[in-house]
């Protein structure tokens, strides 16, 4: 595997992990969650699950992209990753403030 492919996989890992985390938070908000009075009674800690699942999803997608993207497209994908990183971050920040 070339260094550029590894870089692409790592970029996808970072971006997908962050996006997957926020999407899971938005999903649990929309699908319903226990009220504040039940927080201490809950044995399930959503934060831990979200972190673990989003790291796993980022890792899987990063490996898939690094392996499957054709060699001639790797540079184009890296440029695309650098272009979308900031708009995606702005969207993540907005979502994190909108749904605490």
């Amino acid at each position, binding site marked *: 595997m070339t*260094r*550029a492919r*590894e*870089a*692409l996989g*790592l*970029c996808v*890992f*970072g*971006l997908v*992990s*962050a996006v997957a*985390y*926020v999407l899971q*938070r938005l999903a649990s908000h929309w699908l319903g969650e226990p009220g*504040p009075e039940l*927080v*201490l009674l809950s044995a399930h*800690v959503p*934060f*831990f699950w*979200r*972190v673990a699942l*989003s*790291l796993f999803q*980022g890792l899987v997608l990063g490996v898939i992209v690094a392996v499957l993207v054709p060699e001639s497209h*790797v*540079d184009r994908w*890296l*440029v695309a*990753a*650098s*272009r979308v*990183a*900031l708009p*995606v*971050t702005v969207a*993540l*920040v907005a979502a*994190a*403030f909108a749904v*605490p």
Partner: protein
Amino acid sequence: MSAFLFGLLERVHGHLALLSLALLLHPVITLQTRRVLTAWTVRSAWIAALMLSTSFALGWWIYPTYRTHVKGGLLADAPRVAAAFETKEHLAFCAASLAVAGALTLLRAGSHDASRRAARALLLAAWICGALTGVLGVFVASVAQPGW
């Protein structure tokens, strides 16, 4: 976990995150202003990512104690601060994952132009998320104290 250990780890967690954000500015700025990648740019990126990850891991460690001893009271007395804490938690994870990805990208493929640009974008994104996390952290820490 005792109240003393919780308070100690909470402060170490915050100070470490602040230091890592200051260090993360070095690769973010030098990758923008210099055409040549220096060894110290790569080093500062991965040291900052490591420190940010350690700070996140400390936060992870004290989180169950926060849930047991602080969160309930915070939700009852200051729901806006409790909400700010949740937002801080989300942004902290985004900052840590983006910083680790950016630093590893720089470490593995810093000599490659497109990879270096991608690493810079990820590190800048991590810094933005981290800085907002820090602001929220200071706000939350001013109100949220262990209630035991």
